[in-house]
C-alpha cells in the first residue's frame, strides 16, 4: 500500500514506487468520504525524479469510490498525480498497487 488515507487539498503525487521486476501493475485508488471530481494521471520515470505521463488521466467522479488504473511496459518507476482536490473540497485517498512479474 503506497498511500494510506492521505488527505489531499491540492495537486498531489504518490510516493515514487520502484517496480522494475513487474510486468504488469494495477493501481487501485479508493476515495473515502465526500470528495470533488478527481483526475488521476499515471506517470513513469527512469530514476524516481523525472516523470512522464503514461496513458490518459482517469476521472473519479464525486459519486465514485474506487478506480483501477492498469499499466504495462512501464520501465522502473511508477506514481499517480492527483488533481481536483482543494482546501474547500479536500479528498482522502488510499492507493494500493498490485504487481505481477
Amino acid at each position, binding site marked *: 500500500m503506497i498511500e*494510506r488515507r492521505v488527505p489531499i487539498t491540492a495537486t498531489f503525487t504518490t*510516493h515514487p514506487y*520502484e517496480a522494475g*521486476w513487474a510486468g504488469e501493475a494495477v493501481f487501485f485508488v479508493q476515495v473515502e468520504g465526500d470528495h470533488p471530481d478527481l483526475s488521476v494521471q499515471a506517470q513513469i520515470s*527512469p*530514476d524516481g*525524479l523525472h516523470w512522464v505521463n503514461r496513458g490518459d488521466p482517469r476521472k473519479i467522479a464525486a459519486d465514485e469510490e474506487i478506480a483501477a488504473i492498469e499499466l504495462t511496459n512501464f520501465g522502473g518507476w511508477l506514481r499517480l498525480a492527483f488533481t481536483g482536490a482543494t482546501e474547500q473540497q479536500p479528498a482522502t485517498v488510499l492507493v494500493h498497487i498490485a504487481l505481477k512479474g
Partner: protein
Amino acid sequence: MQKVIQYERGLEKFKPLRNIVTYDDFDKGFNGWLDLTPNFVNADYRHYPSEVDLASWAPSMLSAAPMRFAATHGSMEGTYSLKLSTRPVADRYEQKPANGSMGVVLKRLSAFDPTMRYIQIEAWYAYTPQQDRLGFGEEDIRAFGFYFDLQDPQYRWMPGVRYVNSVNGTLTKKWQYWRVADGVTKKDWCYGREDGWQRPGVDNLWYGRRYPDGSADAFQWVPDGEQDLLYNESPDKINWLYFRLLIDYRRREYVEMQSMDRTFDLRGLAPTLTEPYKNINNLINPIFFVETDTNRSVNLFLDSVVYSTD
C-alpha cells in the same frame, strides 16, 4: 532418517548459528518482509490514537538501485534488494519524527524451539539519499538500524541497535543500543500523553525524548561505538556493508554486534523489559528501519538477510 545438507553458496558471506530459520535474498521477492503499520481495529478501521502517525511510514519496494547519473547497481548478488525509503520530510531531531520520515520493514515470526538460547540477525546492506540535489548527501541520513520485537511468557522486550549517522545535519556516526534511560515515565515516552497503550521500552524507534547531541531516552550509546561507515562519494553510488547482531534470548541480554570489520562486545548490557501485551506470546519479529534528517527521501537497501538460532 539420514539428512544430507547442502548450503547455498550465498550463505558463505554470512556467519549463521546452527539453525538457519530464514535466508532471504530479495531477488526472489519480498520473502515475507512487509511494512510496519498500526492495528486497524477501531470503528471505521481506525487505529488507536497516538502522538506519532504509525500509519504514515513510506512503503518498501524491491529495487534494482537505479541511479540518476550512475549505473543501475542491482544488488550485491543479483538484481534486486529490498529497499526501505522515507518520504521527503523531517522534523528536527529533538522533535517527534515527522509523519513519513521513516521506512520500516519487518518479518512476523514466532519462537518454536523451547531449547533456544541465542537468536541472530545478519544483513548485507547499503544506504543513500535520492540524488535530487547537489552535494555529498551523507548528512541527510539521520539513522538506520535493526531490532527484534520479542515477547516471551514474562516480558515484551526489544533488543536492537541503531547507527546515528547525522543529527540536524551534523555527522555523528555512532552506534546506540536499545534501552530506556532510568526514570523515563509514560508521559515522557509518549510526548506528554499519560494515557494510551504505549509503554516505555516498546517502539523505541519513535518514542521518548531526543536530545541535540543525538542521545535519547530510548537508546544508550554503545561503548566505544564510534564507527566511520563507508559512504561513497556521491548519492548515486552505494557499497554493500555487513551487519550482525547476536542476542542471548534466554538471559534477555545483548551478546555482540559486528559491523564490517569491528565486533562490539555487548555482554552485560540488556534491553528494557516491559509487561507483556495480550495475545502475542512467543513473538519474534526482526525489524529494519531508516530515518531521514531533512526534507529528502533516503534509502536503506537490504541485499539479503539471515535469521538464525541456536
